[in-house]
């Protein structure tokens, strides 16, 4: 009996605390916004309020909503204080490869370029066989072996830990492809899915592309046009997963995270001790790929 009354008291206490906290937060936010009237208009949620009504408070029982809050918190910090990490729960991964597809759609990836394949493994001996699916984004290593080999310094680790490629500088020597022990880099050989589908006898049948292939992509927050006959980046460059930098900088989760059917992929700021990813990395199921190479990957797997 004692336990139940204690727990009831605890619930009441928690409710009271939550109410107080939300009151305080509202008051604080109001004070903050009144102090900075010019900045209020820049927050999209405030803009939306007029038409869609007040945004409900995010439910932290839903991992996606909690991660969005984590993301917003992280974006308020200076760049060098963030440490983006990804956690992939292999028990939840069902091998649907929706992440691979959404990634290709988000970054408009041509043939041969893939940022996040899902590796299938078959373990055991018949009849006791199981399958394991291992999604493999870029590990965004803390000690990346791909950056020092770049002869033109086109690839580098950003202060927030993401290994980026400067498409303007990359000359396409593909040394980083060979240096990456995770095969996380692919080369854009300038191909299109619709290549060779031209009418018989049509000149330059190779120079064709479907409309979906020629829409621009927005990697690194810039518009990249990739069209047949256009000899500009990212054609000829090394390309890799950058945790959808253009999305996270605008308060959205990476495409693979939002698409994951099993909810197996988590993303957030490891430097934030209250974040979901920090909690998951602490799990006893945590492992990283090829620890022995000393690359310090920032993609964690829960096995």
């Amino acid at each position: 009996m004692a336990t139940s009354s204690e727990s009831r008291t605890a619930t009441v206490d928690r409710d009271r605390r939550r109410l107080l906290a939300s009151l305080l937060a509202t008051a604080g936010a109001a004070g903050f916004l009144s102090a900075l009237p010019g900045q209020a208009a820049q927050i999209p949620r405030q803009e939306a309020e007029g038409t869609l009504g007040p945004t409900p408070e995010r439910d932290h029982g839903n991992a996606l909503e909690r991660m969005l809050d984590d993301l917003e918190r992280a974006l308020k910090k200076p760049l060098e204080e963030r440490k983006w990490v990804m956690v992939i729960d292999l028990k939840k991964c069902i091998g649907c490869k929706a992440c691979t597809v959404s990634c290709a759609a988000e970054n408009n990836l041509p043939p041969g370029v893939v940022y996040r394949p899902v590796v299938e493994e078959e373990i055991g001996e018949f009849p006791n066989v199981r399958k394991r699916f291992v999604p493999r984004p870029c590990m965004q290593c803390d000690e990346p072996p791909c950056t020092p080999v770049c002869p033109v310094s086109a690839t580098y680790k950003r202060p927030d830990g993401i290994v980026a490629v400067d498409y303007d500088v990359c000359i396409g020597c593909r040394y980083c492809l060979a240096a990456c022990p995770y095969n996380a880099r692919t080369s854009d050989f300038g191909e299109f899915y619709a290549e060779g589908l031209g009418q018989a006898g049509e000149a330059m049948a190779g120079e064709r592309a479907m409309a979906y292939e020629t829409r621009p992509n927005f990697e690194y927050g810039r518009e990249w046009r990739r069209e047949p006959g256009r000899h500009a980046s990212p054609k000829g460059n090394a390309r890799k997963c950058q945790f959808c930098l253009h999305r996270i900088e605008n308060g959205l989760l990476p495409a693979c995270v939002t698409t994951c059917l099993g909810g197996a992929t988590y993303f957030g700021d490891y430097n934030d001790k209250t974040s979901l990813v920090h909690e998951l990395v602490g799990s006893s199921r945590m492992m990283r790929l090829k620890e022995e190479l000393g690359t310090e990957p920032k993609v964690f797997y829960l096995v």
Partner: protein
Amino acid sequence: MAHVAYDIDPVEHRPALIEGDPDFHGITEAVARPVEWRPPWGWYAVLAASLSLLGLFGVSIAWLFWEGVGIWGNNVPVAWGWPIINFVFWVGIAHAGTLISAVLFLFRQRWRTSINRAAEAMTIFAVMCALIFPGIHIGRPWLPYWMLPLPNQMDMWPQFRSPLMWDVFAVSIYGTVSLIFWYVGLIPDLATIRDRARTRLRRIVYGIFALGWRGSFRQWLHYEKAYLLLAGLATPLVLSVHSVVSFDFATSQLPGWHTTIFPPYFDAGAIFSGLAMVVTLMVICRVVFKLEHVINPLHFDRMAKLMLLTGSLVGYAYSMEFFIAWYSGNLYELFVFINRATGPYAWAYWTMVSCNVIVPQFYWFKRLRTHMGFLFVSSILINVGMWFERFVIVVTSLHADFMPSSWDYFKPTFWDLATLAGSFGLFFTMFTLFVRFLPMVAMAEVKSVLPQAHVHNRPK
């Protein structure tokens, strides 16, 4: 002075280095002949064939610039394909020239004088071919100069930790030093051609390049000092260049590349393939230009001995790679080597082993070391093997990489073949022009190894 015939060098008591006991003038006549005479029709035929291949090279590169690296067989696990293989192949070919001209000079190997000029020319032309490949290999081939530390307003600077960067310096320094060394060696011979010139144009052109050489004692003194210093400067490059090239592979974490044996193994292979190329070229040139007495079996015998040594070193490296793969207990390393020998590229691996390990073992026999037909065939086989060595290193390590889902079989396209054939076009065009317009044997140096030139020689 009565002429005395020497089959045995009267001072050294060894077989004379130059057969038929020519006098100094005889050497000049023999060497200057191909430079001064109307070349035979065969020369024009070779030049035409080489120029056609060079044209193919131009077309391949133009198509590459237009269409992109997708025209080659490169795919995603095999991101480094034939261009890198060809680069390493040509850099390797280059090495023998410097070995013969600089290292053997410092070791006082006087037999080098008959072949050093042509070998050095081969070095320079091979470096020219080699330098083209990393430039066209890149995805945006109009930008290779971004690898150079050029001041610019684009906030760009090369990454000096990249082995590819070291390559840029290693190979360009090597090319520069080889060119200077070769040119300095040419000066007295250019003066000879100038003095023998029968037309005004030749006198002017060779005169400009002879830099006013008059053959005075003081000039010879300076010349020999400069030659010695340049030989000293070029010698470490023989070892450093291919070591740096091997770092391209050895510094990455890929099993099959990540081995400490690579620098000496690459160097031995480079000298091996370069000597084979010298042998191939010299077997033909000595006959075509009637220089059999200057470039005679004695020289081939010694080059074949060097090939036997370096070929055996390469064979040792092959077996040591396997041993370490097993002994280290590294499963990935072991897989790569077993896959090389028994996997889908086993044909390439065993081509390499038969050409590079088995063929040079025939050089234990003196008869075969001095048999021109055998030398010609075996030296070509060795270069086929050495090309396949680079193919095996690049392709078999990459094709079955860390991710089984991305494993792929590399197939070359027509443009891969055209680019390789085209680079041979460039090489042979340059070499064909060289044998026509420059003395292909270092006359002055050959004269210095004749018995008559020996300070202790007292004619009977």
